[in-house]
């Protein structure tokens, strides 16, 4: 499911990044790559605030739809 669908406080595992070249490039540059754990710190209508390791990143809804995650979390 896309990252944008998660609720505040949930964590998930990134499966893949979809979308156009620029969007994908920007996301992977910021560390959104498969196998990483993300946590939703804020989801209240506007952009999300997600935690990626120690990073906090504001992510527009459109972008958050391009990050496909599995809410069962990462293995191990």
């Amino acid at each position, binding site marked *: 499911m896309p990252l944008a669908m998660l609720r505040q406080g949930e964590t998930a595992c990134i499966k893949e990044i979809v979308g156009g070249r620029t969007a994908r490039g920007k996301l992977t540059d910021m560390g959104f790559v498969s196998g990483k754990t993300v946590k939703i710190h804020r989801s209240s209508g506007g952009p999300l605030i997600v935690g990626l390791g120690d990073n*906090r*990143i504001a*992510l527009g809804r459109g972008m958050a739809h391009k990050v496909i995650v599995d809410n069962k979390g990462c293995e191990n």
Partner: protein
Amino acid sequence: MALNKRERKNTELKVALAGNPNSGKTTMFNELTGSRQHVGNWPGVTVEKKTGRAFYQDYSLEVIDLPGTYSLGAYSEDEVVARDFLTAGDYDVVLNIINSANLDRNLYFTVQLLEMGVDLIAVLNMADEAEKKGIKIDKNKLSQLLGTPVVETVASRGRGIDNLLEQTVQNRDLSEASLKINYGSDIEDLISEVVEMLKQYDFSQQINQRWAAVKLIEHDPEAVKLLEREVGASKAKKIKSLIAERELKAEDDFDNVIIDKKYEFINKVIAESVQRPTADEEPENVSDKIDAVVTNKYLGIPIFMAVMWAIFKFTFTLGDPLIGYIETFFEIAGGWIGTQLLEIGVSPLISSFITDGIIGGVGSVLVFIPNIFLLFLAIGVLEDSGYMSRAAYVMDKVMSKLGLHGKSFIPMIVGFGCNVPGVMATRTLDSKRDRIISILINPLMSCSARLPVYVVFAGALFSSHASTVVFSLYLMGIVMAVIMAGIFNKILFKGERSHFVMELPPYRFPTLKGVIIHMWEKVGAFLKKAGTIIFSVVVLIWVLANLPLGVEYASAESFIGQFGQLVAPIFAPLGFGSWQAAASLVFGILAKEVVVGTLGVVYAAGEGGLRTALLANFTPLAAYSFLTMVLLYTPCIATLGAIKSETQSWKWTLITASYLFVLAWITAFVIYQGGMLLGIGV
């Protein structure tokens, strides 16, 4: 890689600072070179290349500070500056500034540089923050795995600088070998084939062929362009179709595989060289706790407004008494110097030049040093705290209604200091359309140069409501910016939808040094401006007030008076049709403080200084209308220059200059005529 490495003396070194945004490059640059470049705790502070010099032992180092970037992909103008510099290769060593507390993402960029064959030193900056988090990095192991020297620093406290310099000069001739990541047999085979094909062409002798091959396999647009330029479209097509053919057969897109392999490599490096405390559930840190309040859906915008109000109050309330002292000083000094000059028999003309021209003109601007000082102190604290990107996040709600996103708000906040860096800060926006709109509205952010005008009028005419009046002008600027952005969004070209991704750095306690440097820089710039452009214009106006020969000083018959009268009818419907007001607005386009300087010179004849003169010549309503004009009308030439150079277009520059004038005129007209009808402040 050293493509075009110039012939340099053995003791001359060219060193570039590169790395992720907000990793401390500029802090390091200042530390190395003794410069005072702008540092702030948000990504995208530096948007252009800056050069300085450092000396170590017998060595002389040319140091270049670059804008931050997450990769060589370069999606925005500032990143292009960094990418172009790094790929051109005109340097000896890159100091890759890395945020140690955030190693994996930072190493992604490091790895890209190493693959390209860049000679670099991995600088583990912010070692203090890593330490606090209990992150332990085995430097020797890391150095061995990356095949490059590793140094630990805390730039903000000057820790590790000497060691860094030592390593830099010792490693000025690093091996030419580049990092090789194994991309798996499919891609590796293809790389070899592409390298073979590239070898036929001369241009490939000067670049790292493996790196070029990988870039082509990733479909990197820049690499493809380079290839086409060097070998022609038809030969380039042969290579491209080979890649396309293989990719079709492969399971996954090659660019995805390459990214995954890079991160895989980084993960392995980190696993072998970094130890982290193994907490099951990562405890919420202080930044998260602050963010829970500050970015709250309902509280976010009110908190932002409160912050603006606090900055404003601080500047205004604390500055006011100080201005009073300086004003008194200039008055007393002016009077005393005047009598002294007469006593020693200096001609009245020279005496008038000094008292009316210099003290009346430049002095009336210098009076506002306390405000400038306090404003930039407050902005410095704001920028260093980490709140900037939160404000951008919070304002996304408003900005997205205008077709922009939150990041476009950062240049607007920068504009409160000065519109020139405000306009330049739009480089961080990756969509051309967002950038143009942000540039067009930036002058509506009331810059520090307009503050003296507000303060002198508000003090003279709105005594008890002075601060409310001035704050209302700041708000008017923001509201107008929002309205105009909305209009431009409707009528301008429909552009690509831009992507909103922005890092929220941890809150940091503003360093005294950082804030003081920032403030000094700004006050220094203000003094310099007062001594150069403001001084020259004021002298010019004083001369024009004395010509033609024999005319009564600053009378309607003087040149400046005649000129003002020519322009004044334009402003008459706005409530300030005097030649003095008209002349001050026209000359104010040279620099906004000049509005006060001009009024100071032309009203200097009167008793009791500028305030008394304003009280006699403006009603409160006319004054408010005048201030509206000053807020909104044509930006100063420095800002117009920045707009020209950033947009590369006279069209946008002229559009900005003229739409703002029209907007200002209409708004002032509505305010003045409306006020007259209602009988307010007449």
